[in-house]
């Protein structure tokens, strides 16, 4: 856990990519879940943030 936090603070690609991947997956789940329409409404912004983050952090050093 500390390694991941250190990686995030030092702008390392691995942990940031993992965070972006989690956001994308969360956004897709929110988009397709059948329980709360509020989650569906915010799904696009979560996926968009995750996708843009993924593009940016893929240029971070290893």
């Amino acid at each position, binding site marked *: 856990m500390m390694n991941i936090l250190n990686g995030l603070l030092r702008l390392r690609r691995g942990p940031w*990519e993992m965070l*972006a*991947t989690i956001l*994308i*997956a969360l*956004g*897709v789940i929110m*988009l*397709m*879940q*059948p329980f709360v*329409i509020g989650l*569906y*409404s*915010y*799904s*696009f912004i979560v*996926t*968009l943030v*995750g*996708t843009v983050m*993924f*593009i940016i952090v893929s240029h971070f050093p290893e």
Partner: protein
Amino acid sequence: MTLSPMETAAAKTPDSMAKRIRGLSNRTIAWIFVAPTIFLLLAVNIFPLIWTIRLSFTNFRVNRPNNDVEWVGLRNYERILNDPDVWNTMQATAHFLIWTITLQVLIGFALAYLINKKFKGNDMWTTIIVFPMMLSPAVVGNFWTFLYQPQIGLFNYVVAFFTGADPASFSMIGDVHLAPWAIVIADTWMWTPFVMLICLAGLRSIPDSIYEAAECDRASKWRQFWTITIPMALPFLMLAVLFRGIENFKMFDLVVQLTGGGPGNTTTLTSIDLKREAFEKWRTGYSSAYAVILFVTVFGLASIYVKALNKVKER
């Protein structure tokens, strides 16, 4: 003295052109070769994408090109993301995605595991299993429509044979509860071979020496399966899941041919709904916003796919 093809081509080049080319740097020559491709990419991919994003903020209707186009900001996105009907199509897509991927991975892996065993007629069975994948989705949709016919369809008779029910008592594509499963079955039939091929590549990449070492350590077949086969084939399984996930998220042709999105809206997947908004209701601005939402979702999934692919390459 015989000239090489390169030298022959150089000799045939007119002097004026040869002088001009000789004056160019390698970098410039490289750009001359790459430029047409870049231009095509910009014209065919990037420009329409930017144009779609621009249209998504307007109320433009392509069937009324002379009307004034108003800038509506994020209103199209708000409408889509608060519309219960669109939410329902997302759920229909989710049902389709989850079940097709689960069934295709389970059956595909099982088939790959069996085909990977050395037996007589191995190649012939591989060809037979791969056959559905080679067909056009329109053809598959068409003949599954016949298979699902309550009166003459083979599928109903097979179900009736095992359950004892009357074949004419249920309609796979006419019943709101059965129609979502009808498209799942047809897609699974068509695309399981694809998953099988990916899994087969994964299984064949595992060296025999690892199994021999496990045999020496007296590991049971069950233990070998869970500690060698599954972990080593996992990246390939993951690739199959992501690849089928992205493809099925965009599924259109097979379902349109099979059910047309019905009965009601039970099998209306997002791509079918998008097509209706764009080319039946002619709400171009709204459908552009819809397309952007789907694009971002697929692009996000594709990013994960590329990351997973790189991990497989590193192995």
